[in-house]
């Protein structure tokens, strides 16, 4: 029996601006719900998206902050196996979120320093992470997977 494969895709372009992060979340929620992504998986994607955008906005150079950010949502179903992937593309300096070093966790509140949690959250909440740099842009993809119950 041949596999049934379906793909649904949505795209969004935003300014690299903290005010637009909420717009991206709303777009993700609307598109993901329309494409049948479960709430828990959508929440995981939303966390990853927020952290990816926060990294660009907080650490990006002028190129990253003046060029638009492109976001692609791709939902793929192969029979009951489903995967939703968000890809964030920005014009900042090359930075591989998928392999950058994560700070060790502090042992006490006194040792805790702000920052460094975004990478940890992206890696923890995604099921798959991929990075490439091409045509002067970073392309970071994070995926969540689930099995569709009927």
């Amino acid at each position: 029996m041949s596999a049934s494969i379906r793909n649904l895709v949505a795209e969004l372009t935003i300014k690299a601006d903290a005010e637009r992060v909420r717009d991206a979340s709303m777009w993700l929620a609307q598109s993901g719900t329309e494409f049948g992504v479960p709430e828990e998986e959508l929440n995981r994607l939303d966390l990853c998206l927020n952290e990816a955008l926060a990294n660009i906005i907080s650490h990006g150079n002028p190129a990253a902050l003046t060029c638009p950010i492109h976001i692609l949502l791709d939902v793929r179903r192969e029979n009951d196996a489903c995967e939703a992937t968000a890809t964030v593309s920005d014009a900042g300096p090359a930075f591989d979120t998928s392999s950058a070093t994560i700070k060790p966790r502090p042992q006490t509140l006194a040792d805790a320093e702000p920052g460094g949690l975004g990478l940890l959250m992206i890696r923890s909440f995604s099921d798959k992470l991929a990075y490439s740099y091409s045509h002067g842009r970073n392309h970071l993809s994070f995926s969540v997977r689930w099995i569709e119950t009927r």
Partner: protein
Amino acid sequence: MAIEFEDVNDTFRRIKLSGRLDIPGTEAISIKFTNLAASASRRVVVDLTTVSFLASIGIRELISSAKALQLRGGRMVLLVGDNVAVSKTLQVTGIDALIPMFSNPSEADQAALA
């Protein structure tokens, strides 16, 4: 994003946050939260039961105020109730090991006052 507080007495305060603690949500409450949570030596319960989304910027806000409060001799604990999304984020980032986290309101109060 909404922020409310209740002073049980001069040294014990409950602060309730509601909504999305993403970048705009955290920026909206940051100054008020810091003033309420860390401006004096108190025992503080931060109620996150109706926070719908917790990003790293929101966690940083909690850590900063918890540290400042500790330096003043106070203590912060977190109340998450049955908010699975928020408690999972706090566990994944290890924050529950730095700021005690409780599901039960009475236990949160007791831990804050201990």
